[in-house]
C-alpha cells in the first residue's frame, strides 16, 4: 500500500500533443500528467477536445505532434492494444460490447487478451470485477440485451479486468440515479486508493467533484484551467466557456 504522497512522477503523460481532423484543429498543444493514486477530471463544452485527448492517451489515435509517455517511456507509436498490455485501459462513450457473448465472456476476453490472466486466476478476477461493477447477477446474460447503464458498467468492468495501472473513463456517469452515481464515485475512489491513475471525462460536474483531486477544463482544443476542483469551476474563463461571456 502506498502512502499519501505517492508517485511523484507521472504514470501517463501527454507532452504538447496536437491533433487536426482535416482542416479542423482539435487539440492545440496539450500537456497533461497522470500520477498513480489520483483521479483527474476533465470537463469542457462539446467540441473542446476531451475525447480526442483520451483517444491519444489510449493509443486509439496518433498525435500529429507531441508525444505520449508511459512511466517515462515514449509510447507515442504504440497502438491501443500495446498500451493496454502496458496497463492503460479505457472505456468508450458509446459502449461497444462484444455482442453474441455474455457479460462474463466480455470481461473474460478483456482479462485474458487485454490483460495477462490465464486459467482459474482469470475466472476469479472476472467474478470479482463483475461484483465490483454490479454485474454479477447478470453475468450470463448476452451483452446485446443490456440497457445503456448496464452497458456502461460493462465498459468499466472490461477496463478493470485488464488490471490496469491507468484507467481512462469517457462519460460513464450520465443517466445514473443518485444512488448509482454514489456507488460509481465510491468505486472510482477505491481504485484511486489502490494506486491507479484515473482520468475521468464527465459532463456531470457535480459527480466529478466528489472524487477528483484535480480538475482540468478544456475549451477549443486547449486546457484553459487546471487545479483544485472548486477553484476551477469558479474561474471566469471556465464559466464563460460553458455559458458565454458575462454581458
Amino acid at each position: 500500500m502506498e502512502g499519501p504522497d505517492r508517485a511523484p512522477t507521472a504514470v501517463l503523460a501527454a507532452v504538447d500533443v496536437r491533433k487536426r481532423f482535416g482542416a479542423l484543429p482539435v487539440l492545440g498543444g496539450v500537456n497533461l500528467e497522470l500520477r498513480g493514486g489520483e483521479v483527474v477530471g476533465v470537463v469542457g463544452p462539446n467540441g473542446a477536445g476531451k475525447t480526442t485527448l483520451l483517444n491519444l492517451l489510449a493509443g486509439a489515435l496518433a498525435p500529429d505532434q507531441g508525444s505520449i509517455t508511459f512511466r517515462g517511456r515514449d509510447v507515442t507509436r504504440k497502438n491501443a492494444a500495446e498500451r493496454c498490455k502496458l496497463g492503460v485501459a479505457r472505456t468508450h462513450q458509446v459502449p461497444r460490447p462484444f455482442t453474441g457473448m455474455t457479460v462474463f465472456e466480455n470481461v473474460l476476453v478483456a482479462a485474458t487478451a487485454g490483460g495477462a490472466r490465464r486459467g482459474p486466476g482469470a475466472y476469479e478476477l472476472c467474478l470479482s470485477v463483475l461484483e465490483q461493477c454490479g454485474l454479477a447477477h447478470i453475468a450470463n446474460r448476452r451483452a446485446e440485451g443490456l440497457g445503456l447503464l448496464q452497458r456502461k458498467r460493462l465498459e468499466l468492468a472490461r477496463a478493470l479486468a485488464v488490471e490496469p495501472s491507468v484507467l481512462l473513463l469517457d462519460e460513464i456517469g450520465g443517466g445514473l440515479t443518485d444512488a448509482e452515481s454514489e456507488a460509481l464515485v465510491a468505486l472510482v475512489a477505491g481504485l484511486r486508493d489502490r494506486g491507479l491513475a484515473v482520468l475521468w471525462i464527465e459532463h456531470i460536474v457535480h459527480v466529478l467533484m466528489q472524487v477528483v483531486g484535480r480538475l482540468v477544463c478544456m475549451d477549443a482544443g486547449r486546457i484553459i484551467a487546471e487545479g483544485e476542483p472548486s477553484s476551477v469551476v469558479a474561474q471566469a474563463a471556465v464559466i464563460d466557456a460553458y455559458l458565454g461571456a458575462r454581458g
Partner: protein
Amino acid sequence: MTLLQVADLDCRYGLLQAVRGVSFEVGPGETLALIGANGAGKTTLLRALAGAHRPHAGRIVFDGADVTSLSAHRRVGLGVALVPEGRRLFGGLTVEENLLVAGRGRRGPWSVASVLELFPMLQARRRMPAVTLSGGEQQAVAIGRALMSNPRLLLLDEISLGLAPVVVDAVYRSLQDVIRSGASIVLVEQDLTRALKVAGRVVCMLEGRIVLEGEAASLDRDRVVAAYFGLRRSA
C-alpha cells in the same frame, strides 16, 4: 392563462432517459430560455414539444387541448413551429421556395415579404439556392420558414450555433421583432448573457430534470452556474 402546459414529461432516446418528470408552463407572448450543459435534455424536450419526438410519459397541453399524441404537422396547424438544430433547409430550393414550402398553414402576419423585411440579409438572396447561403443566412431562412406557418409558439434550438457573434446579434435583433409580434418563444441557448437578455424566464436543466427556474431579471449568474454544474450551494 397559459398557452403551453407541460406536465411530468418523460422522454427516452434509445436506451437513455433524456427528459425526466419535466413540468413547466409558457404564457402567451412569453419568451422562455432553456439552458443546460450538453446532454441535459434540452433538444429532446424541444422536439417533444414540436411532435418530433414521442414522449414516454406525461402530457403536453397546447391552448387547452392535449396534443401529446398529435403528429408534428398537426401541431404546426395549431400554431407550433420548430427551428431545429442544424437548420435543415431544403438545400436545392431557393430562399423564397424554402419559405413558401411552409406557408400553407395558419393565416397571420407572416409572408415571404414580411420575412424578407424581418431579415434584410435575405433580400438579395431570395432567388439563390439555400445551399449557397452563409450560416447566418441559412439560420435566418430556417427561422423565416418556421414563421411562415404563423406560429403562436416558436421553438428555437441553438440558433447561434456556429455563427459569428456579429451574425448572432443580427439574428437576435430580428427575433425581438418576432417577440413584439406576440408569439410565445421557447429557445435553447448556450450563451447565458444572451438568454437572460431575450427571455423573460429561464429554465435550467441538468440530467433531464429542471434544476432551476425563474424570472430572468431575478437570476444572478452565480445561481445559474451552481444549477448548471449541479453544485450544492453553501450559502
